[in-house]
């Protein structure tokens, strides 16, 4: 394939409910998104063939683009483009249909090889159903029953450093052999088990598992305590995903023939594009994709990429779980009007059982957005717990560290270092007003210092992630120009003062040279408009007791980026405390909503 000759690209993402297709073309020397189409995913009766949904989505693209992409029989994509301009030059796809890749991982020590194994699986785009470890407190028979019950798509067996003891990881293999796990898809096909543990134990593992499962080997993901080596395991997981799991899913063998590069699991592709952006722009990034059933969070801090999947936090199928986990009070605190508990519970459960419905009344929208804040908050909490440094390693300390004895395994996600927050998924990408997306992200993530806020316009990061594998330039061009919508910049000092006390004094030099001076009071939210593409120079002086990242009361100067919302001065403090009294809380929420012009006035 000659990359330079590629001018027309088709990319699809086969989600669990919808298959989304985008057409990217080179126009005036740069790659741009031309149109987008979608159709229901077809992996279940009555149409058990994923390619049907793909062809339907492409048919919509074809219709909208006003040119032919499918052959006359509508059974295949024309590739490469012919002389009449029919077809595309490149076709790529991602998939999370059928529930994505569901894995179980094992390690000897839960917080060491167990966590590394979970990070390897998550980074490959999997959902981790359970982390089983020698020291997880469960008895062997409980572990065996758990494996039998879960029926994962794949097991990642790890544990032990190279040259270390072999007996613990062998015991894990014996437990897997005793459980004799069956694959989720298809009777009579062997479950893939990937071994990525102590290399000295490999022959013992083979002895115990060969013939019982589809056993494969890769490098140890934790060769020493101080080192994590996740990439070989991640690549092998993606390969096994294609060879075993996908090839048993309905229609996938055909789809694999249609694509020009391997199909990637959707979250894996999103992770790739996030890393690329972080590397290219030199930014620390947190990204979130909130779906109906799951919420994925991605982060790149200190050059380390982490991903977490909160399998049961979402806005439709899982909305009731968000409610159950967050609790009534946490949901209610974001609802700017009084509401009866029974009524709220019924509304949430009705959304769960009819997940495709949408709020048609303003108060229903507010309730959904309250749930979204909690779904995002809970998912981010899980992410922070997962995105940690290696635990249990030796730390070099000097006399200077006497008063700063940090533990190993601290979270890498430091909000003060965060440059860009990227939101995507229906509730964020399709919120009626962009202010609502910005506010949901601010309330859920509580960014600190100066943070740029963006949303993915139509959630095309999966397609761009897989495209970046073959055509990085095209993927980056579309990401910059068509994918991200810049909402603005959130300026939020940490600390707590009395309501109404001066929290921050800001001097903003606008692009036209004019200066705006602001005195922000504690407990307030304010917006200064600054359009997309423009930057301003800001001097931000927090009051003593507040911190912009450089220390208590220390002023910072920085360039701040505009967006469709503008510069958001959030001096409500960190941590954010809402009034305990319902009336006061509602009044406060209403004043913030008004400040950001969040909802229609009536």
């Amino acid at each position: 394939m000659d990359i330079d000759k590629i001018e027309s690209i088709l990319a699809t993402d086969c989600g669990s409910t919808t298959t989304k297709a985008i057409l990217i073309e080179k126009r005036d020397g740069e790659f741009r998104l031309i149109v987008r189409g979608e159709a229901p995913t077809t992996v279940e009766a009555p149409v058990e063939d994923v390619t049907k949904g793909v062809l339907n989505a492409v048919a919509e693209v074809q219709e909208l683009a006003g040119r032919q992409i499918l052959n006359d029989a509508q059974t295949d994509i024309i590739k490469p483009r012919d002389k009449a301009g029919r077809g595309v030059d490149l076709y790529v796809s991602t998939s999370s249909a059928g529930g994505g890749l569901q894995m179980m991982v094992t390690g000897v020590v839960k917080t060491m090889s167990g966590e590394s194994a979970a990070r390897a699986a998550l980074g490959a785009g999997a959902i981790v159903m359970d982390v089983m470890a020698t020291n997880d407190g469960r008895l062997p028979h409980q572990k065996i029953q758990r494996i039998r019950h879960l029926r994962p798509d794949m097991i990642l067996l790890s544990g032990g450093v190279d040259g270390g003891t072999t007996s613990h990881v062998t015991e894990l293999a014996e437990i897997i052999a005793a459980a004799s796990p069956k694959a989720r898809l298809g009777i009579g096909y062997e479950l893939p088990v990937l071994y990525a543990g102590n290399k000295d134990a490999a022959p013992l593992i083979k002895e115990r598992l060969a013939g019982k499962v589809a056993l494969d080997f890769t490098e140890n993901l934790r060769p020493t305590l101080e080192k994590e080596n996740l990439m070989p395991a991640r690549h092998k997981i993606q390969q096994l995903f294609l060879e075993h799991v996908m090839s048993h899913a309905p229609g996938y063998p055909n789809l694999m023939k249609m694509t020009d590069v391997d199909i990637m699991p959707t979250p894996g592709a999103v992770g790739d594009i996030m890393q690329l952006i972080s590397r290219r722009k030199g930014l620390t990034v947190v990204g979130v994709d909130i779906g109906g059933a799951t919420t994925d969070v991605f982060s790149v801090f200190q050059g380390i990429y982490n991903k977490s999947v909160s399998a049961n936090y979402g806005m439709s199928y899982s909305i009731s779980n968000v409610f159950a986990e967050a609790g009534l009070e946490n949901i209610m605190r974001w609802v700017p009007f009084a509401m009866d508990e029974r009524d709220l519970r019924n509304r949430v459960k009705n959304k769960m059982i009819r997940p495709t419905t949408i709020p048609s009344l303003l108060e229903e929208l507010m309730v959904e957005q309250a749930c979204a804040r909690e779904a995002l908050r809970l998912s981010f909490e899980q992410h922070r717990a997962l995105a940690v440094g290696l635990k249990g390693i030796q730390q070099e300390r000097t006399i200077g560290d006497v008063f700063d004895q940090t533990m190993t395994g601290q979270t890498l996600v430091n909000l003060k270092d965060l440059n860009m927050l990227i939101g995507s998924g229906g509730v964020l990408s399709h919120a009626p007003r962009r202010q609502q997306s910005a506010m949901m992200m601010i309330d859920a993530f509580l960014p600190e210092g100066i943070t740029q806020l963006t949303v993915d316009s139509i959630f095309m990061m999966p397609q761009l992630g897989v495209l970046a594998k073959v055509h990085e330039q095209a993927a980056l061009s579309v990401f910059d120009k068509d994918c991200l919508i810049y909402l603005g910049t959130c300026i939020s000092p940490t600390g707590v003062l009395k309501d109404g006390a001066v929290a921050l004094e800001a001097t903003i030099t606008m692009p036209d040279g004019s200066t705006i001076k602001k005195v922000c009071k504690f407990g307030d939210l304010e917006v200064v408009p600054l359009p997309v593409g423009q930057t301003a120079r800001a001097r931000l002086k927090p009051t003593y007791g507040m911190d912009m990242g450089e220390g208590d009361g220390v002023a910072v100067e920085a360039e701040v980026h505009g967006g469709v919302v503008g510069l958001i001065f959030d001096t409500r403090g960190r941590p954010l405390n809402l009034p305990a009294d319902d009336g006061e809380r509602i009044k406060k929420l209403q004043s913030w909503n008004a400040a950001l012009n969040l909802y229609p006035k009536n």
Partner: protein
Amino acid sequence: MASAYTPGLKIVGKTRFEKDRKLPMKGTVHVKKGDRITAEMVVASTHLPGNVTPMNIANILGCEPKEIMDFMVKKQGDQVQKGEVIAETPGLWGFFKTQVQATITGTLENVSTVTGQVILREPPIPVEVHGYVDGEVAEVYPDEGIRVATYGTFIQGIFGIGGEVVAPLKMVARSPSDVLDAGNILPEHKGKIIVGGSLVTAAALTKAIQVGVKGVIVGGYDAFDLKEFLGYDLGVAITGTEDKGITLVVTEGFGKINMAKKTFDLLASHEGKKTSINGATQIRAGVIRPEVVIPLEGVKETDVVGGVNMGMNPGTLVRIIRQPRFGAVAKVASLPEKPAHIATEAKVRIVEIELLETGERMILPRANVEIIEE
């Protein structure tokens, strides 16, 4: 676009109902294609491998794992009885032996000289699959199970609790708006599947269990009561395995919502008949809804009414499935082609409907109505 595909729940008076009855793993199928079967009949059975119990012999005997073969009394593949000695040390001149006794009856499946562990497996667990509905074997999946087929009434619910239950149907509510309260549950409802109207109260459900009612079909159920009933807040709608002594099929949703008149009338017309219900619900990719099946004698393929309704057109009967007017039945008045702004300011595809009860016209998102499939 003048029509739209919005699948709804099936409420069909006469239809052909088919269902796979499969084993969790390969086994024996006891019936053949064309056989008449009853709901209670065992159509396939198998044995699941027994549960396993690992025992670390090396730890118990205080020896190195590689030494345990020297002390094993039983070898791999041997049958063992609970309490039977499976390993022992020679002791000193025949005294001071340390013994390891089997903790279960079963088979010694594996001995590991790396971990010092042995695995004992209990005898296989028998698993049986029943017919579920009175009908005919439409297809046999060799070693796996069958597909049962029957003609009769089929109603899909929206949410349920509990598994498969077969019992005679008893109408308790007199109208679709009646609330089923504890006072309505009588001793003679024991062993029956009872039908309520717009709501079943928490007290009614408790009383129904006490009386021995097998199942409840009702329009609405309160989410708060569900939490109290289950003892936990249901997070994800995957149900069917609850062991509460009753199966519940909710036809409309959470809260007090009148049962659709058509559903109510259909059930009323079959009072006393043998009915199969299943509360199992999975609202995920591959959605499973709770169901009510009433096999009817003498119904043939030619009697089957309607087909799969694939489109919403002007005149189509729909149910509103979200506020405002949740649960109301309406007729499609028009399907405007262009997306339009609704009260939330979202721009969505809309449908104009006319409420059957009042004749009032409303504009709603298409996503918030479902076709009443006939």
